[in-house]
Each structure stands twice: as structure tokens, then as C-alpha cells.
């Protein structure tokens, strides 16, 4: 057996966390260095895997498979395909930069970095496993560290951090109760049908579940994954939660954790329950568009920068849902690519807001202004994120959004038009926030503020570079995603109404 790269990638942050446990409490510099090394190893491995993955063969590669629990048919099954690789890379990009974004954490660095590293490993685990049980183990491992991080290092502005943390946690956990019920029922049914228990996604996808069963199970999964993806109307935890959370948590949560919802929806719900997906796809599309429009308007009304980005992330997830609802290769490609693009963008956004808040101690747009003069580098990062958010061509998020509209227009027509209109509102609130924060007359009281320097530049450089590279060379991302999505969507057409198929080929 070759070197278990994916396991190494998963264990690197955990090992770093373990080392930090044994370091003295007040060596905060050392904690940070260990955390950097741990996340860097993971980032390096995931970059290597991303480029070493053979797209011409496709399928699951870098497989590690060990029998785990016999009577549940669980195997420790690690492997990546075109769907999980962008997510893995995204996780480690954000994980690595999140360490730098938390460089100035004032107190209890030891606990902070332990929790952060566990969080990163947990998120990573969901993306690289191909076994449902292991997926679930990682799915919720992340919830508790986040809660603790929010209540200790979070900030109380409009809502208290305790409220924000609890709301976030309870929403996600209640959602996951529905998901768990569906998972158990699916597993039991599959075992009844095939006779041998097997929890790998591929095996479950081979089972022919009765159509009625699929419809109900898909609904439960949609509630579960939807609440993690901040699907309208289960989204309200998201702006409050992000506003209360410390910068690194906001970055990881908005950047990748949410994406577990979208990933799970495609990898598990759509893949295993195609008939259910076909049945509910109009509902998903409607909820997606509603989320898009509603959250975009919500963002318009916000004064706090974090709330603006929080609502905007709900709105972007609406596009993702719309892409998934299209149930075509094009639409789902767009959805996955958009998750990647939004992840990078949101992480950059939150890290820049975090730096602004550290310096000015306010996130209120009306209290800020003209910061571009005092902090030009920070302004560059902020504007890049803002431009990516509104889908400027040349940055990573333009093509995914375009693809989603193409994919969904074929199926939903008018609804897609409404979603496109959402882009205009996005431009409005993003540009307004950028203009009022960065431009206009500089305020004297901010004259003494220092621009980003040293390690603080890392999030800007890394994430900014990905925004540009992804925008200039979209094929890097799209070929990868396409090779992963195509096999998953290969059966779905049997379940879609025929009228769609006629116009549905591109």
C-alpha cells in the first residue's frame, strides 16, 4: 500500500493540536508556529493531491480502505474525486490563512489553536471520506469547538456572543437530527434490500430504493443539509453566528463549513436518492431563489460589516441551491465551483473585516470611512473580496455564477431570471459597503492605524492569489469538478420529467 496521503493530511492538524496541548500555557508564539506548521503540511499535501489527481481516469483516487465496523458495513474509506478535491483544497487554504488571521488573538492562545486545529481537521474529514458513517463522525465534530470558540473569543454587538453561539449550535444540531434519522432509515432499508450492510456512498447509490421512500428521505436530508447550508428559511443562524464568532471561525464557517451542507446534498442526498431529488428540485430552486433575493435585501439594510457579509453568504448559498436544483451536470458544476469561489471570497472578506475591527474596534459602516488612504493593502484585499462577491469577470466567482444561471435557466426559466436580478442588489450593497468603509474623506482618528504587515499579509496574498488564478484559469477548477460531478449525475435523468431533457442538453 502506498503512503496514506489523505490520512496524513487529516492527521497533521490533529498532531499539531496534540503538541500544543503539551506546550506551556504562555508560549503563545510557539502555539502559533506549531499551528502554522500543522496547517501548512495539510495545505501542501492537498495541493499535491489536487494536481496529482488524474482527471482522465476520474473516479475515486488515493484510496485507503480498512474494515472498520463489520456489522454496520463501515470501512475507513478515504478517497477523493473531482467533487471532494476542490473542497479539500479550499479547507486547507482557509485553514492555513485562518491561523494568520488569528495572529493577534489576545488571550488563551493555547486553547484557541487547539480548537482551531481540531475544527480544521473535522471539516477536512467530511470531504475526504467516502463512507457515510465516517462522514457523520466528522460532520458534527466541528460543532462543539465552534461553540466554545464563539463564547470565549467572540464579540457581542447586536446580539450577545452567547446567544449567537447557542443559536448556531442548536440550529445545526436540530438540522442534523433530521439528517441522522434519514441516514439510519436509509442504511436499514439498504441492508434489507441488498442483504449486506455497506455504508460507502458508492454502494448506497447502487441500491434501488422505492420511489416513495426516496422522496421522504430526501426531504429529511434537505432539512439537515439545508440548515447547514443556511437554506432559506433555516438561515437565520448565519448572520448572527458570523457576527458573534471570532474572525477565524467566521472564515472557516462561512468559507468551508457551510459547504459541507452543499457537498453532502450532492454527494449523499442527490447521489443516493435521485428520485427524491427530482421530486423536490422545484422546491429547492424556489427556496434557493427566495434565499438569494431575501438575504440580498437583508444585506442592504445592515450597518455592521459582518452582518453584510453574513447575509451575502446566505444569498450566495441560494445560487448554490439553484445550481443543485437544476440537476444537470452544468448546474451542479456551477454549484460546486461556486462553493469554492464563495469560500475563498468569504474567507478573505472576513479576515479583512477582522483586521479592520482589530484596529478600529468597530464594524459599523457609518463609523468608518476613507480607510484606503490609511491602510492601502487592507483596502486591496477588501475590494478584491467585494469584487469577487458581485461576480466581476476575471475573478474566480464569475464563471461559476454564470454556469449556474445557464444550468438553471434551462430548467426553471423565470426563477433563474429572478436570481440573476439578485446580482444587481449584491452589487449595490457590496459596493456601498466598500465605498463607505474605504473611500470618502479619511477620518483623523484612524490616522495612527497601521496597515497590514508581516504575517498579516498571508490571508490577503494566498486567498487573493487564488481569486485571481481561479478567475484567469477557470479550467483548473472546472475540469476537476466536472470529472467528479458527471458520474454522480449520470442516473438522474431517468427521474426527471422528459420535457426537461429535450432542452436540457448542452
Amino acid at each position: 500500500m502506498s503512503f496514506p496521503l489523505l490520512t496524513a493530511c487529516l492527521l497533521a492538524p490533529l498532531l499539531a493540536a496534540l503538541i500544543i496541548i503539551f506546550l506551556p500555557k504562555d508560549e503563545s508564539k510557539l502555539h502559533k508556529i506549531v499551528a502554522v506548521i500543522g496547517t501548512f503540511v495539510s495545505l501542501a499535501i492537498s495541493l499535491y493531491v489536487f494536481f496529482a489527481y488524474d482527471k482522465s481516469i476520474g473516479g475515486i483516487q488515493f484510496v485507503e480502505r480498512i474494515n472498520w465496523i463489520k456489522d454496520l458495513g463501515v470501512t475507513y474509506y478515504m478517497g477523493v474525486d473531482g467533487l471532494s478535491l476542490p473542497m479539500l483544497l479550499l479547507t486547507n487554504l482557509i485553514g492555513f490563512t485562518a491561523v494568520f488571521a488569528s495572529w493577534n488573538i489576545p488571550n488563551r492562545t493555547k486553547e484557541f489553536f487547539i480548537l482551531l486545529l481540531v475544527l480544521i481537521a473535522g471539516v477536512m474529514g467530511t470531504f475526504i471520506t467516502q463512507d457515510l458513517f465516517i462522514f457523520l463522525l466528522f460532520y458534527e465534530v466541528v460543532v462543539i469547538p465552534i461553540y466554545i470558540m464563539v463564547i470565549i473569543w467572540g464579540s457581542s454587538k447586536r446580539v450577545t456572543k452567547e446567544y449567537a453561539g447557542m443559536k448556531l449550535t442548536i440550529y445545526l444540531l436540530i438540522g442534523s437530527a433530521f439528517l441522522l434519522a434519514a441516514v439510519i432509515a436509509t442504511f436499514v432499508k439498504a441492508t434489507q434490500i441488498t442483504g449486506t450492510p455497506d455504508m460507502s456512498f458508492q454502494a448506497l447509490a447502487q441500491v434501488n430504493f422505492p420511489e416513495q421512500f426516496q422522496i421522504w428521505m430526501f426531504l429529511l436530508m434537505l432539512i439537515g443539509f439545508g440548515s447547514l447550508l443556511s437554506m432559506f428559511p433555516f438561515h437565520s443562524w448565519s448572520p448572527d453566528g458570523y457576527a458573534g464568532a471570532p474572525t477565524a471561525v467566521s472564515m472557516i464557517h462561512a468559507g468551508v463549513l457551510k459547504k459541507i451542507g452543499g457537498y453532502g446534498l450532492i454527494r449523499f442526498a442527490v447521489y443516493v436518492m435521485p428520485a427524491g431529488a427530482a421530486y423536490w428540485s422545484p422546491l429547492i430552486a424556489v427556496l434557493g431563489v427566495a434565499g438569494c433575493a431575501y438575504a440580498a435585501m437583508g444585506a442592504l439594510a445592515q450597518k455592521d460589516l459582518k452582518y453584510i457579509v453574513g447575509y451575502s453568504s446566505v444569498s450566495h448559498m441560494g445560487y448554490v441551491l439553484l445550481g443543485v436544483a437544476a440537476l444537470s451536470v452544468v448546474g451542479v458544476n456551477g454549484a460546486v465551483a461556486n462553493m469554492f469561489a464563495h469560500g475563498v471570497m468569504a474567507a478573505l472578506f472576513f479576515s479583512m473585516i477582522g483586521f479592520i475591527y482589530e484596529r478600529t474596534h468597530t464594524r459599523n459602516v457609518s463609523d468608518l470611512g476613507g480607510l484606503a488612504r490609511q491602510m492601502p493593502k487592507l483596502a486591496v484585499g477588501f475590494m478584491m473580496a467585494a469584487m469577487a462577491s458581485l461576480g466581476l469577470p476575471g475573478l474566480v466567482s464569475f464563471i461559476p455564477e454564470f454556469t449556474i444561471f445557464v444550468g438553471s435557466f434551462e430548467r426553471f426559466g423565470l426563477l433563474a431570471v429572478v436570481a440573476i436580478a439578485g446580482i444587481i442588489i449584491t452589487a449595490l450593497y457590496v459596493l456601498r459597503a466598500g465605498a463607505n468603509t474605504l473611500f470618502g474623506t479619511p477620518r483623523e482618528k484612524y490616522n495612527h492605524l497601521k496597515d497590514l504587515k508581516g504575517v498579516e499579509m498571508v490571508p490577503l496574498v494566498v486567498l487573493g492569489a487564488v481569486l485571481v488564478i481561479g478567475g484567469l484559469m477557470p479550467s483548473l477548477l472546472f475540469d476537476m469538478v466536472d470529472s467528479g460531478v458527471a458520474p454522480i449525475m449520470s442516473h438522474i435523468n431517468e427521474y426527471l420529467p422528459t420535457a426537461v431533457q429535450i432542452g436540457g442538453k448542452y
Partner: protein
Amino acid sequence: MPFDISLLTVEIILAALGLAILVMGLIIPSNTKRGLGPITVIGLIAALASAIATWNVQGSLFEGMFLVDQYATFFKITCLSAAVLVTFGCMKYVDQMKAQGEYYSILVFSVLGMSVMASAGDFITLFIGLELMTIAFIILVALNKRSAKSAEAGIKYVILASISSAALLYGLSLVYGMSGTIMIYDVARMVVGGSVSPLFVFGLVLLVAGLGFKISTVPFHMWSPDVYEGAPTPVTAFLAVGSKAASFAILLRLFMGGFIGVAETWVLLVAILAAMSMVIGNLLAIPQTNIKRMLAYSSIAQAGYILVGLVAATEAGVKGVMFYSFLYVFATMGAFVVVTAVYDKVKSDEIADYAGLAQRAPLLAVVLTISMLSMAGIPPLAGFAGKLYLFKAIIADYFWLALLGLIMSMISVYYYLRVCLVMYRDEPIDNTPIKTSGNVTVVLVVAMIATIILGIYPGPLSEVTNTAASTFFLH
């Protein structure tokens, strides 16, 4: 059948140990009584080892009145593990109570009662085991002579335990009257036709009530918060784990061994009790400010989850109950040993006094967090695997109950996290670190590692419980 006394090894060791400690407690001078703790631990470990060593031994004594199968042995191992952990982890508390001789010997007798219950093959043995355990617990609950709360808890427990025993006895006598036999598996052969008289069903209802008291399921749960709060903490811990596990052992033996043929008469009743326990236990835990009361309500909810295995009325259900009982030992022991250790320093069980525990004693805070999250069933901890096995057994027939159970267990996270909030966010009132002695640390680390490993890698335990559950139906 020849009389094979080796089948009684565990019980003989326990009886001898209990008597020996009783005598030693009387004759040795009081300043050396601290040594009784380690002696008890060694004796219990010997009993545990013999139970593990005789894992493959099966047979029966006294014409089937005393059954030794892997099912019984598994529950003996569960109760003995709990007893070892609680004795090893709470010696200091007992020393401060200054009643070592009584405490340790009675504790051992209660374990003996549990072990007899696990092996009971007929109503008489069952009742003897149950009473041995209950009377031992009555004494233990009231053992803290200087505390009015402890005495009050003892009185409450003695009254309610007697009522429940009366209900149980009445139920047993009705079942005996209608079936003509006291042997559990003979009753099963009697009722195999499926139709039974209303009086028999009435007997079953009384049995549910009597045993429902022992496992503290709603609506027979009223006693447990008061008793849990008033009793000495190690006793509370053992009451929550040992007496519950043993009572589940006979509950399953009676209903799935004896009355499986008339399952349709009682399954719905048990399902409703399970649902009520989950909902009421979890909701009432939310407003609690005393950690022992909170854990009492949470243990009511746990009883609801475990009852799900009985609702399934299948081998998978039995397996789920066994699996969950075993992992519950570690989660509960972890939590209660932390409570004991904190009480030792802070002299309070109020949740508010746990402020800043994460800074004063990181290990205690981590173990308490992990134990509580395991009770809530958050992956990757043991509770998740346990719930997975339990709910897997019923999801096809009782989807509503499984969904309710999962939702309620996520709601329970709310009150568990409130404790975490106090421990992690708040600054400590008193900055002195809380030092834990070596044996407490060992218990805590064992409980934590077991909870994590059983969650990530439940395979081995799952196979053990599978084989044990299959012996259940061989009689």
C-alpha cells in the same frame, strides 16, 4: 444436571468480599480504615476478571433459576466496571464521610444484587437480587449521616422503593397466577399462542411500573432528582449506572425472554413511556442549576433512549440496550467523578460554581464536556454509536420514535453546553488550580478514552454485544 458451583464464581467472590470488608470494618482501628478502599477495588477487579475469564461459560443452576449466559455475564461486567471506577475514583469522598466499612461492604452487596439480577431465571431469584440491590442502595443513599439532605433522600427512596417493589411483586404474582409457572422462559412457552387474559396484561403493566421506577422512566421518575441530589455523589453515580443497567437486564429478560409472545400488548406502552422519558427528562433538565439534579434529569432521558431497545423487541434491540448500557458507564462515571472532584475543592454542586473550571483544572473540564456530549450522542463519541444501534433497531417500525429521540438528544445539547459555557467562558472566582489525585486522574482518563474509542471504533464491542444478545434467545 450436575451442580456446577463454578458458575457462581463471581457471586461467591462478591459475597466473600462484602463479608470480609464488613468484618474488617468492625475490627480494624478507624485511622487505618482508609485501606478498605484499595482492598475493595482489588476484590472488585478480581470479580471483574473472573467474569471476563468465564465469558464463554454457559449453563444454569437450580433447574434454570440461575442462568449463566453471555447476556448475564455482559451485564455483570458492566456493573462491575462501574463499581471499580466509582470506588477507585471517589475514595477521598468516602474517607471524608468516615464510614468506609459500611460504605464499601454495602456497595459490594449491591453489586452482588445486580449480578444475581442479571442471572435471574425465575421470579424468585429476580426479586431476591432486586431487593438485595435496593436495600443496599437505601442504606448507601442515607449514609452521609451529617447531611439532612442525605437522610431525606434516604427516606424518599425507601418509601418509593417499597411501593415499586410492591407493584412489582403484585405483577409477578398475577403473571404467576395466570401462567402457572415462575420460570421466565416457561412463561414464554405458555403465552406463545398470543392471546392472554386481561389479568395477565394487568400483571405486565404492574411489572412495567415496578421496573420503570428502578430505571426512572417517566412517570415513575419523581424520586430520582431528589435522591440523586441528596445522596453522596459516588452513590448517585453508582445508582445512575449500576442499578439502571441491572434493572434493564431483568426488564429485558422478563419482557423479551418471557413475554415476547404477547409483545403487541406491551410494546406500545413501552414506546410511549420511552417517548415521554426523552421529552420530559430533557425538558426538565434545562432549568436546573444544580449539576447533580441536571444529571438526574438527563439520566431519565437516557432511560428513555435505552427503552427504545425494548420497543424493538428484537435481537438488535437487545444488542442496542447492552451496547448503550456499557458506554453509559463511562460517560456517567466520567461526569460524576468530575462532580466529586470539584465538590471536594469547591464544596458546591451548583453549576455557577463551575466558573472557570477550564482554567483551574483543564482535565476535569474536558472530561465533563466529553462525558456530557457522549450522553447527548454527538459524534464521534460513544453515545452516537450507541444511539445509532438503538435507533437502527426501531427505525423501520417506529420512525416517529427514532426521530423524536434524535431531536430530543440534540435539544439536550442545550443544557449540557450551558455547563460548558460556565466552565470555559467565565473567569474563575478563585484562581487556585484544582489538583486531582493520581487515581482520580486514572479514572478520568480511562473514562474519556473509552468514550472516544467506543465512538470512533465501536466494532469490537459491537461484536461482543452481538454474540451476547444471541445467547439471550437460546433458552
